[in-house]
C-alpha cells in the first residue's frame, strides 16, 4: 500500500482529500489527513462577526463532515516532519510514513511577536478579527462602545486575505453610521505599505473609497510595539498613534512545526516552486495555500485555483511523468465596501488588478474594480459555495488560469 499524507484539514487540505480519493484506487493508495482542530472555520466569515452580521456559530462546522469516506482523519497536532526520511510525527507520539506529502497547514496570527500587544489591554480594548475568538470578543465590545479613536493596524506583511482589513474599515464605517455615532468615531487605517493596497490601480480605487468614507490612512507605519499603559501604537521610526480601540492584524506566520522541522523561512513559509507548487527541496512534497512562499495573495480563492495544479502535478509525479501544470498565481477577491456594495479584483503573478467585468467579458455579472451591489451578493453567495462545492473539490464554473478577456488596460 502506498501512502499520501495531507497536513492540515483547512481549505486546501480538505479540497485535496476530496479530489484525490475520487481518483486514486483504494486498494493501492491510503490517504491520511491530520489537523489539530476538529472544527472547520469559514474564515472569510470572521469579517462579519464583529458587526453582528454573522454570529458565533454561523462560521463553524465539524471537519469530519467534509472529509470523504476512505480518507483517514486524525485529530492531533503535527509535531515534526523528517523530510529526508519521509516521516511525520504527531504530538501524541504517533508517526506516519508517506510516499507523498501535501502541506496545507496555512498561516496563523502570532500576537506575541509584538511587544505589549497581549498585555492587559488584550481583548479589553485591543482585538483581532483573524481568529474566531477575537472576532466574537470584538462583537461583544462593539455592542456598547460609545466612540473615540478606532485604529486599524497591519503589523507585518504578508498576511492572509490582503483586502480584509480594508473591508473591516468599510464595514466599521457603515456600522457606526447606522448606530448614529459615526461623528464620535475617528477611524485610522495604519499599514506598513505605502498605500491602501500594493498594486497601483487597486490602490488608487481603494484609496479614494477610504477618503470618501472619511477613513484616515497612515501609510509606511511599521509597528514596533504597543504601549498598553498609554494606549499608543509606536512605530520603528518613533511615530505614535493613540487609540481607544485597536483592531490589529497581528504578525502572520506559518505553522510552528515548520520551524521545528527547519523547513521554512523566518516566517515559517516553505520554499515552493511558484509554477509547479512542489517544494523546492523535496520532490515528494507539495505545498498548497497559505503555507507556501509563492508571491501571490494568501487567500481561499488562490488555494482553490492552486488545488487544480497540485492535483494534476501530484498525479503526474505518481505516474513518473514530468510536472506540466503551471500555476499563474491567480487570485480573485470580493471586497465588501459597506452599505450593501462590493468590489472585485482578479489578478495573477504578472497582471495587476484591472477594471472590467468577470467572469464573462462585457457581461459580468460582476464588475472588476467597481463598487456595485451585485459584487456584494457575490461575497454573500461565497459562503454557500464554500461549504457545498469548494471544499468538496467540485468543479466551479471558473477557470483556474486568469484570463485577460473582460479586462480593460
Amino acid at each position: 500500500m502506498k501512502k499520501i499524507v495531507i497536513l492540515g484539514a483547512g481549505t486546501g487540505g480538505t479540497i485535496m482529500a476530496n479530489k484525490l480519493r475520487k481518483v486514486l484506487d483504494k486498494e493501492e493508495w491510503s490517504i491520511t489527513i491530520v489537523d489539530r482542530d476538529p472544527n472547520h472555520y469559514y474564515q472569510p466569515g470572521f469579517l462579519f462577526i464583529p458587526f453582528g452580521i454573522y454570529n458565533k456559530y454561523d462560521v463553524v462546522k465539524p471537519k469530519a463532515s467534509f472529509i470523504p469516506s476512505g480518507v483517514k482523519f486524525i485529530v492531533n497536532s503535527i509535531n515534526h516532519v523528517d523530510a529526508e526520511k519521509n516521516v511525520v510525527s504527531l504530538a501524541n507520539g504517533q508517526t506516519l510514513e508517506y510516499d507523498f506529502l501535501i502541506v496545507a497547514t496555512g498561516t496563523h496570527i502570532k500576537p506575541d511577536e509584538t511587544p505589549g500587544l497581549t498585555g492587559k489591554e488584550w481583548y479589553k480594548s485591543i482585538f483581532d478579527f483573524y481568529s474566531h475568538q477575537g472576532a466574537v470578543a470584538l462583537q461583544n465590545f462593539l455592542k456598547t462602545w460609545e466612540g473615540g479613536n478606532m485604529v486599524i493596524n497591519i503589523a507585518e506583511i504578508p498576511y492572509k486575505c490582503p483586502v480584509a482589513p480594508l473591508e473591516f474599515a468599510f464595514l466599521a464605517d457603515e456600522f457606526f453610521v447606522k448606530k448614529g455615532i459615526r461623528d464620535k468615531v475617528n477611524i485610522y487605517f495604519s499599514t506598513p505599505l505605502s498605500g491602501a493596497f500594493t498594486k497601483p490601480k487597486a490602490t488608487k480605487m481603494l484609496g479614494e473609497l477610504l477618503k470618501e468614507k472619511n477613513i484616515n490612512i497612515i501609510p509606511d507605519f511599521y509597528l514596533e510595539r504597543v504601549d498598553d499603559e498609554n494606549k499608543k501604537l509606536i512605530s520603528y521610526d518613533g511615530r505614535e498613534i493613540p487609540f481607544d480601540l485597536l483592531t490589529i492584524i497581528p504578525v502572520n506566520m506559518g505553522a510552528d512545526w515548520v520551524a521545528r522541522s527547519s523547513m521554512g523561512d523566518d516566517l515559517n513559509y516553505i520554499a515552493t516552486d511558484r509554477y509547479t507548487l512542489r517544494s523546492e527541496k523535496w520532490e515528494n512534497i507539495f505545498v498548497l495555500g497559505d503555507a507556501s512562499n509563492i508571491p501571490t495573495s494568501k487567500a481561499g480563492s488562490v488555494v482553490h485555483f492552486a488545488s487544480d495544479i497540485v492535483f494534476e502535478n501530484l498525479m503526474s509525479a505518481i505516474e513518473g511523468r514530468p510536472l506540466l501544470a503551471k500555476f499563474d498565481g491567480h487570485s480573485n477577491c470580493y471586497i465588501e465596501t459597506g452599505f450593501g456594495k462590493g468590489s472585485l479584483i482578479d489578478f495573477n503573478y504578472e497582471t495587476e488588478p484591472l477594471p472590467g467585468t468577470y467572469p464573462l467579458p462585457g457581461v459580468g455579472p460582476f464588475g472588476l474594480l467597481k463598487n456595485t451591489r451585485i459584487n456584494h451578493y457575490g461575497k454573500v453567495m461565497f459562503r454557500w459555495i464554500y461549504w457545498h462545492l469548494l471544499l468538496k473539490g467540485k468543479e466551479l464554473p471558473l477557470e483556474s488560469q486568469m484570463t485577460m478577456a473582460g479586462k480593460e488596460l
Partner: protein
Amino acid sequence: MAEKTYAGKSVNVTEDGYLTNPDDWTKEVAVEIAKEEGIELNEKHLTVIEFIRDKILKGETLTIRSIGKSGIIDTKGFYDLFPGAPLKKASKIAGVAKPASCV
C-alpha cells in the same frame, strides 16, 4: 523607463527611479542616488547596502523583519539609517529592484 545620469554615468531607471540593471551600480552611483533621497552615505549605510545587494542578487527576498534579524543591523538602526521607508530606500540605493511586497 527613463534615463538618468549618476556620477557621469548614464543609466536606465524604472518609473520609481530604481536601476533596471543592477550591474550599472557603483559606489559612486550609490552616493548620488542616496543624495536624492536626502541621505549622506557613510560606511554603515554601505555595509547594509552591500548585504542587500548580495542577498537580492542571489535570488533571496528580503523584508524589514529579516534584515532586522540578520545580525547586520537591528530594525531600529535600519530605520535610523534610511528614515521613513528603509527597505525601499536602501534597495534603490543598492541598485536592486523595488521590493515586491506581496499582495
